[in-house]
């Protein structure tokens, strides 16, 4: 069982395949991906694409309901309308998680409406994935700051600190409401993360779908080559992602 916790329904895919995930799934199938959390892409680039893209991602996921887990986004800059979009995405569209990319979306984690969205996510029982590893809005310690303020909300560092900030991601994950998705740090960092962070709150992801490049094969090779006990690898790939959904529910 391999659950990829970081994929996108990319702008390029939507432009070419118009909501049909067959070719996207064919690549996932090649690598034995059982399920995937499907994040938006257009919706994290333009605020005026947000609602339409949430609809698109939900529809794409609905065409493979046992394989694709829809994830939605919103824009805190849209204030009440942003909060309404979160509610609509979860309650009407069936999104199982939220995804924010504060660097691309251009808002600070100190934004008061983001705070309200974090509170709403706890109420709606959905985890929040954050792009992380990038200053000045997406550092692991900044997300840990949110986790301190919103202790009933479940936060996932969707890149576990990327290339240069994974040590800070380990520190962030000392908080019980912070999870790490191994998607970006190099192999040795993955090994260290698995030694030091709570093995129950580690996920794996490939960032597949942002463009047409197949990133799944590379990141699976890295994960498989990593000196991490097989039992832990199985947990990370197949068990923890289901617990993430259950723990938020």
């Amino acid at each position: 069982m391999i659950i990829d916790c970081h994929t996108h329904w990319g702008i390029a895919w939507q432009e070419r395949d118009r909501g049909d995930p067959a070719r996207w799934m064919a690549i996932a199938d090649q690598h034995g991906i059982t399920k995937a959390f499907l994040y938006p892409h257009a919706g994290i680039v333009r605020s005026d694409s947000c609602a339409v893209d949430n609809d698109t991602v939900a529809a794409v996921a609905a065409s493979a309901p046992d394989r694709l887990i829809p994830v939605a986004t919103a824009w805190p800059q849209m204030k009440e309308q942003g909060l309404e979009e979160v509610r609509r995405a979860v309650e009407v569209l069936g999104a199982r998680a939220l995804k924010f990319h504060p660097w691309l979306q251009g808002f600070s984690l100190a934004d008061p409406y983001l705070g309200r969205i974090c509170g709403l996510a706890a109420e709606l029982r959905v985890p929040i994935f954050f792009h992380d590893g990038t200053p000045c809005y997406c550092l692991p310690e900044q997300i840990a700051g949110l986790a301190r303020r919103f202790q009933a909300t479940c936060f996932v560092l969707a890149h576990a600190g990327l290339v240069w900030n994974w040590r800070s991601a380990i520190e962030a994950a000392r908080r019980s409401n912070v999870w790490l998705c191994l998607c970006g740090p190099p192999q040795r960092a993955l090994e260290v993360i698995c030694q030091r962070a709570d093995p129950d709150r580690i996920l794996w992801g490939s960032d597949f779908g942002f463009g047409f490049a197949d990133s799944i094969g590379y990141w699976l090779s890295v994960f498989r080559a990593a000196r991490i006990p097989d039992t832990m690898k199985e947990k990370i790939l197949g068990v923890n992602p289901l617990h993430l959904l259950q723990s938020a529910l």
Partner: protein
Amino acid sequence: MLVTIDCYCAVGNDREYDFSADDLIRALDRAGVNRAVITPVDRYMVVDNCEGNKFILESAQRHPDRLIPSCSINPWFGKRGEQELRRAATEGARLLVLHPFIQGYQANDDLAWPLIEIAAEERLPVYIHTGPPGNASPWQVIDLAEQYPTADFIMGHCGATDFWNDAALAALSCENVYVEPSLARPFKFAAHMQALGPAKGVMGSFAPINDLAVEWTEMRKLLPPGDWSDFYGPNLLRLLAKRGPL
């Protein structure tokens, strides 16, 4: 068969790994790679440069046909660092590694200029770790490369992750800048190479932070050695051989 060289392999004992020259030789054999430039571990780049450079030189001397020694100097050592760079080059170092993030300066800071001048004189290519925001971006490398046109610069990691957008445009703007893929990931780096052409890249794995065989295997899938042979060794050999035959 053209030579294959890995541009960046850290040898030694650091806080989270212990990778000996013999471990590296086995990894090279497994991946079918002829040679590697070996580099000091983080601690030796930040402090104890001389001890680290000597360790690298000795490690390379035990496998002279396979391993090529580099050296690293922290620019904060000033005159002492300049002397150490001259010494290391005289003893056999063939490449200068700078890591602005851990050494504590910005890549284009005038603090490092004396070292670049010496590297240009001694015909040592300069490898700069790029990517950490604020410390080492692709365009900072270009500032240096424009100022020192007789030096060769290797843009380690292509600014990964946050500066990946800049890497190809920056590298295209300066003839004496080459890109290296470790941490930039093959599926992203291949697009850079398509934009830059085969003469502008040098293959590096950053073992043991990355698995050498995984990096080479995955890269060969996307940039087949038949079409990209210069990238896998001859480009780097040409830069290293400016100081003399290897």
